[in-house]
């Protein structure tokens, strides 16, 4: 056992640094939208966390933060141009911190230990807020948006997003989420 080695080198450096794919940007922005659906002050929390974590050199203010999120092609108003790697990292860091803050809520949505009626009410509330945000900000002609709003397909897709957020929270969540958003295009 080689216990003489130094403590864990940060694995952060070994996750490739390249721009996110279109699918990666869509997923990242959808998870940020879920955070807003779970927390009515989610938008403000993003700005505050960005400042708190020292991301102001990449995302100096709320307008710039908003513009970066508009790189998502599913949005009603999309912004041309690729999201830079540093900008994507800042958004992933913000999501990681938001997921950490919201972890008790994410957990309660995913848990099967609580009474089914209470869980169903929580999902209903979350889904109604998410639907509202999607209708307000997203392009409803896009298939991916229609599937999220679909009463049949939507619940499973929303659950996937919530599960992904729960696995993105905490100290190892950043690298895991970043690697996932960099998956090869299927």
């Amino acid at each position, binding site marked *: 056992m080689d216990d003489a080695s130094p403590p864990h080198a940060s694995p952060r450096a070994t996750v490739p640094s390249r721009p996110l794919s279109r699918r990666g940007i869509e997923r990242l922005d959808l998870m940020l939208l879920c955070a807003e659906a779970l927390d009515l002050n989610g938008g403000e929390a993003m700005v505050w966390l960005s400042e708190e974590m020292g991301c102001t050199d990449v995302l100096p203010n709320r307008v710039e933060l908003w513009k970066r999120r508009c790189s998502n092609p599913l949005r009603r108003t999309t912004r041309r141009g690729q999201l830079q790697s540093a900008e994507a990292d800042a958004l992933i860091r913000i999501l990681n911190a938001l997921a950490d803050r919201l972890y008790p809520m994410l957990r309660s949505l995913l848990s099967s*230990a609580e009474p089914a009626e209470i869980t169903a009410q929580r999902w209903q509330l979350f889904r109604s807020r998410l639907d509202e945000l999607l209708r307000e900000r997203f392009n409803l002609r896009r298939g991916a948006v229609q599937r999220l709003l679909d009463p049949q397909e939507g619940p499973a897709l929303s659950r996937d997003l919530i599960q992904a957020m729960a*696995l993105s929270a905490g100290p190892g969540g950043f690298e895991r989420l970043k690697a996932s958003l960099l998956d090869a295009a299927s």
Partner: protein
Amino acid sequence: MKLSTRYEQTSCRLVLEGLPDLSAGHSADTLGIITGFTLALAGRTELEGKRDHLQALLNAVMPYARHLLSGQPRAFGAASDAVAVEPTAGGHQLELRSSQPDTPPLRLQLDDAELADLVRCLDQLRLDARVAVPFELPPPQPLRRRELRRRQPLAQRLSAPLAGVGALLISALLVSLLPPTPRAPLPGKTPAAAPAQLR
């Protein structure tokens, strides 16, 4: 001097016990040698193990969580490994195999929340600066194309390129049906023909 570190989430508690490795130059409050660990998952027996079991737990659960995050759940942990995890209908099954002969494996059913708790505890452990034990765990990597199964059904994946090729063929066919445009006579040839007619 015995050291102990504790990592807790709602349904999961992981306690690591060990000693500082003073021969490696670690400080007295850095855990460098693991003597054992206990893992308590909500409502179930407390599990105990050694460093190898903890390594097997990390080897199975961390890549499982990584694949699950990409929506690609699959089993991890070979038949010879001490820990295996696989997706089930209602959640996830963690199988712990004892090194003692004639001891049946312990199978635990975890829901999504319990799995997330376990992953968070293991993350806290492997990134804890107070623990200087090098766990052999590759960093999370993006999944390659062949690892991404069933993200989109085949028909859906092929629909866009097939529609494009179809549209191209139809437009090519329509264009080929158009009568050829009569060509205007070249301006250079007209004056040359005119004197011949005059003769």
